[in-house]
Every structure is written in structure tokens, then in C-alpha cells.
């Protein structure tokens, strides 16, 4: 009996010991991911940079009301939401591409060709948006290669500075994203194709199904679940565009069309020092983003039985 109790205690101590061991790293997560939540209080004050929060007037939900009530603020909010949604929805049109990329390349028999294509098309994923901006400046800027060639051919009127133009901004940005990410995004489908049952293909071939028929009736249906899970999970990140790309490519001329929600939060808070409004926008963004994630996660669980939790 005595032995049992001490064994039980030893086990409990062991459980707690594990917790104590993880505590330092867990503390880091809390310090940098949860502790910032105190900053949400700024949204409920009329805070001016340089002053202390205690010297600022408490205004309750006034900042949120202004965001929607004030004409200029509301216009800005609608504009940046349009940009965020526009760029994302345009991007969704391209989501079948990685799957097609993998299917078509997998059908090719030359392994060397396959390897070279895969290696080179994946590289852009690993360079920063700043580098990409520098590369596009060299090629498509006002004095870049393309325009210099146009000028050299005497086609002065055709010179277009693609990077400062405020036309087709969404499309330009989405195409850049595709150039950067297509090869990388297709890897998951290569892995999925490698895991397909080959017997189905052989049976189909015996029955006289051509290459396109095999792709259409066997490969694609088996990849669709992967496609949908990735699509659903991307909904969870709908509002999280990040700022790197838009900071690098943004300028005074295309700002109205390129400013997405994240960049707006940055410009509002850091650029014009309107901390309280910026935090208010950020809070709404965080809450909606989390709701979207929860929604996506639940659907993923129902549809495929896999989820983050």
C-alpha cells in the first residue's frame, strides 16, 4: 500500500517536472504572443504618442464608432478592405494552377527535365519581396530592360512604368505572387500524386483510356480533397496578408490600390501616429481572422476529419 502511494506521487512529480521544464519556452510564447493583448486597451483611449496611457482620456467605444461613422475613416476602411478582398479573390482564381502544374509535370517521362523544372521554379519562393522588387525594377521599371528595349525600337508611347502605375495593381501583385509561389505550392501535389495507387492507372490503360482521360477521371478526382482542404485552410488566413510585399511594391502613386488591411494598420499606427485608431482596426481584424480560422478548421474537421486541433 505504502509503495503504491509513493509510486503515485513520483508519477505526479514527474508530470509537474515536465511542465516546469517546458515553462521557460512557454513563458516566451506568452510574453511575445499573449502579453501584447494589454495593448488592446489603447483602442479605448484617446491616446497621443509621447503621453502616458493614464493621461489619456477614456473614450469607451468612441474610436470604433468614428471608424465607421467618420466619412473619411469609413472610406479608407472600405478601400483597404476592397484591396484585401480583391487581391485575395483574384488569387483564388489561380489556386488550381499548382495542382495542374504537378499533374502535367508528373506525366513527363524525362526525370532530368522534371528535376530541373522543379528546382528552378521553387527558387523564387525563397527570396524576399525586397529582392523581388529590385529584380522587377530592373526588368519592368521606367528605365528597366523592357522599357529600354521599347525605347530603342522607337516605341516611346509604349513605355509603361509597371511598378508605379496605378492600373492593374491587383493583377500585377497577384501575378508576382504566382511567379514566386507556384513551384513551391505544387510540391504538396507532387507528394500526393506519388502516393496514388498505380493499379488504377494500369487498369484504365488496359481498358484503353488515353492520357487525358486518365488524368481527368483518375488523377484529378483523387487530388480534389487535398485541393479543398488547402483552400479551406487558406480562408483562415484571408485577412493576414502580411506587409512585406505591399511595403516593397507600394508607392505614392499606387497606394490607393495596394494598401491592404495589414498595411493600413501599419500606416495608421506607425506612419501617422494614430495609435488608438490603428489598434481598434487591428482588434477587429484579429477577431474576424480568428473567427475565419475557427470556421475553416471546423469545416476541415467535418469534411476530412483532419484539423489543426
Amino acid at each position, binding site marked *: 500500500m505504502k509503495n503504491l502511494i509513493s509510486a503515485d506521487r513520483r508519477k505526479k512529480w514527474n508530470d509537474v517536472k515536465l511542465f516546469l521544464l517546458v515553462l521557460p519556452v512557454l513563458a516566451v510564447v506568452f510574453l511575445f504572443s499573449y502579453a501584447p493583448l494589454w495593448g488592446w486597451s489603447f483602442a479605448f483611449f484617446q491616446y497621443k504618442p509621447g503621453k502616458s496611457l493614464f493621461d489619456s482620456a477614456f473614450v469607451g467605444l468612441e474610436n470604433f464608432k468614428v471608424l465607421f461613422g467618420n466619412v473619411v475613416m469609413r472610406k479608407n476602411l472600405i478601400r483597404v478592405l476592397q484591396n484585401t478582398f480583391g487581391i485575395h479573390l483574384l488569387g483564388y482564381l489561380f489556386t488550381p494552377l499548382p495542382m495542374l502544374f504537378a499533374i502535367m509535370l508528373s506525366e513527363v517521362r524525362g526525370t532530368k527535365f522534371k528535376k530541373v*523544372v522543379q528546382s528552378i521554379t521553387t527558387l523564387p519562393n525563397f527570396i524576399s519581396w525586397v529582392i523581388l522588387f529590385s529584380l522587377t525594377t530592373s526588368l519592368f521599371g521606367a528605365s528597366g530592360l523592357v522599357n529600354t528595349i521599347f525605347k530603342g525600337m522607337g516605341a516611346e508611347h509604349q513605355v509603361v512604368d509597371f511598378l508605379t502605375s496605378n492600373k492593374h495593381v491587383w493583377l500585377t501583385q497577384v501575378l508576382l505572387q504566382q511567379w514566386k509561389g507556384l513551384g513551391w505550392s505544387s510540391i504538396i501535389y507532387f507528394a500526393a500524386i506519388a502516393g496514388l495507387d498505380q493499379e488504377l492507372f494500369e487498369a484504365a490503360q488496359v481498358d484503353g483510356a488515353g492520357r487525358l482521360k486518365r488524368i481527368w477521371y483518375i488523377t484529378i478526382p483523387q487530388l480534389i480533397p487535398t485541393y479543398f482542404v488547402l483552400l479551406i485552410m487558406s480562408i483562415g488566413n484571408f485577412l493576414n496578408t502580411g506587409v512585406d510585399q505591399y511595403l516593397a511594391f507600394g508607392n505614392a502613386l499606387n497606394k490607393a490600390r495596394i494598401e491592404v488591411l495589414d498595411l493600413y494598420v501599419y500606416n495608421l499606427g506607425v506612419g501617422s501616429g494614430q495609435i488608438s485608431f490603428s489598434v481598434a482596426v487591428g482588434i477587429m481584424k484579429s477577431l474576424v481572422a480568428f473567427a475565419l480560422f475557427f470556421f475553416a478548421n471546423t469545416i476541415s474537421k467535418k469534411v476530412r476529419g483532419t484539423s489543426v486541433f
Partner: protein
Amino acid sequence: MAMTVAVKKKKKWSREDKIFHAVVYIIFGIFTLLCAYPFYYLLICTVSNSQMVDMGKVILWPEGIHFRNYMEIFKVQNLGNAAMISVFRTVIGTTASLLASAYMAYLFTKENMWKRKLWYRMTVITMYFSAGMIPVYLNNQMLHLTNTFWIYILPGLVSVYNMILIKTSIESMPAELEESAFLDGAGYLKRFIHIVLPLQKPILATVALFIAVGHWNDFFTTKLYITDTKLYTLQYLLYELLNQIQAASQQIEYEVNSQALASALTPTGIRLTLTAIVTIPIMIVYPFIQKFYVKGIMIGAVKG
């Protein structure tokens, strides 16, 4: 495999097959060239005569080859220092982050940890829920991290996504390997250092490269938190330079540490060479990343 054998036996390709292959080769050939050319163009420009570059004469191969750009670029004020900061933050940041993430991953595989599920979930949620840019900024400011080197290291110390990758990999390791040492009376820390770390080398290498690329490519942290020019990174320097060029619009003279540039460097030359300097390290480590990435992304896909 079996399919290719079957096709080989047939030998004769149908017309459909021939057209299909032709189309695939053309499409992928074009796209691959589109991906490779900007990098190639960058490299040939940096070793070409700058006037020829500006005139658009450099397209397929370098013209008037010279390496002055690379020899002179480090005379640009602050660039040597920025290179050092970039290297330091990448090396120190990657090492610290890799160890912290692996350590956390290992402990989270221990199912009997007190309230394990709760801690694990709270950690994973941070990938999807953030207090927001400004609250995070205010918090880091309160912690006195602005304008210090530590802002590059500490906030990203635990990389949750990579922690999940490592955890999944540790879980697939046979438990007996660890238990044999348990019988010898080794504690968790010892087992982590002497058994888990050596056995998980492949995934750790993958994750290390992911983290390193992230550190190397980051310019936003500098933009947000750093005003001290001594703490600038190469990426940020490049970002600043590009901004200056754009602000000064096109060919108007702009000031890029002109006192250091009495040499033969043209503005375009500086920009391109700096771009090459930050790109080349990525191109060097990239083949190693590629070696492991399929494994990494497969595990990542399962966990969303």
C-alpha cells in the same frame, strides 16, 4: 514505376501522347525560363559595363566584363556593418530558435505533462491569432527591445510552425530508442541532447534552413523597431536604397553616401550588386533546402 514500364513496353506513342508531351515541354520550358532569367539577368548585369546595362545592351550575356562592382561595393558606408548584422542575426537567431523550438517539441511529445493539451493548444493558436502589429510593437517597446540587437532574436525564439514539424518527426521515432537511456537513469534534458537531437538531424537541418532564410530575408523588423543605423541589415539597406531611388524618381541624382562613392559605381550598379549580394547566399543554401523540403511540407500539410 509500373506504369512507365507498361508504357515502355508499348513503345509506340499515341498521337495524344506526343501532343501532350510537346505542350508540357513548351509550357514548362517557358515558365522555367521566366523563373530563371531574372536571376541570370541580375548576375550578368553586376559584372557588365554599367553604361551598357543602362542602355539595355545587356540581355543574354555580360558585356565588358569586370568585377569592380563587387570590389567597390563594400566601400559604401555602413554596408560592411550591415552585412555583419545580417550574418550575426541569422546565425545566432537560427541556432537559438532551432534549439528552443526543438526543446519545446520534445517536451510536448510527453503525454503525461501536466495540462499538456492546454499548453500545446495555446501555443498552436498563436499561429492564427495575433494581438496585432501595434500592440506587439508596444509590448516590445515596453520590454526595451527597440533599437537593440535582441529584437531580431527574442520575439521569434519559438517558431511554432517548425516546432510542430519537429514534434511530428520525434513522434515517429521508435520509443525504445529513448527508453533504453531511461533505464540508465538519464533525465529528460540528457535524453534530449544525447538521443533526440542526434536522431532528428534531417528534420532539424530542414527547419534550420527555413528559419535561416526567414532571418536573412526579414526587413520589416528593422523598419519597425530600429532607428540606429549600426543595427541595419542588408535587406533593410536594400529596401532603403530602393525607396530613395523611387522617391528621387528615375535618373535624378540621389544621395547614397556620395562621399564613399567617388569611385566608378553607378546607382544602378550599387542597387544590382547589393541585390546580388543578398540573393547569392540564398542560391547557395537553396539546394540543401530542396533536399529536404518534400518531407517538411508533407508533415506541414497534414497539420494545416
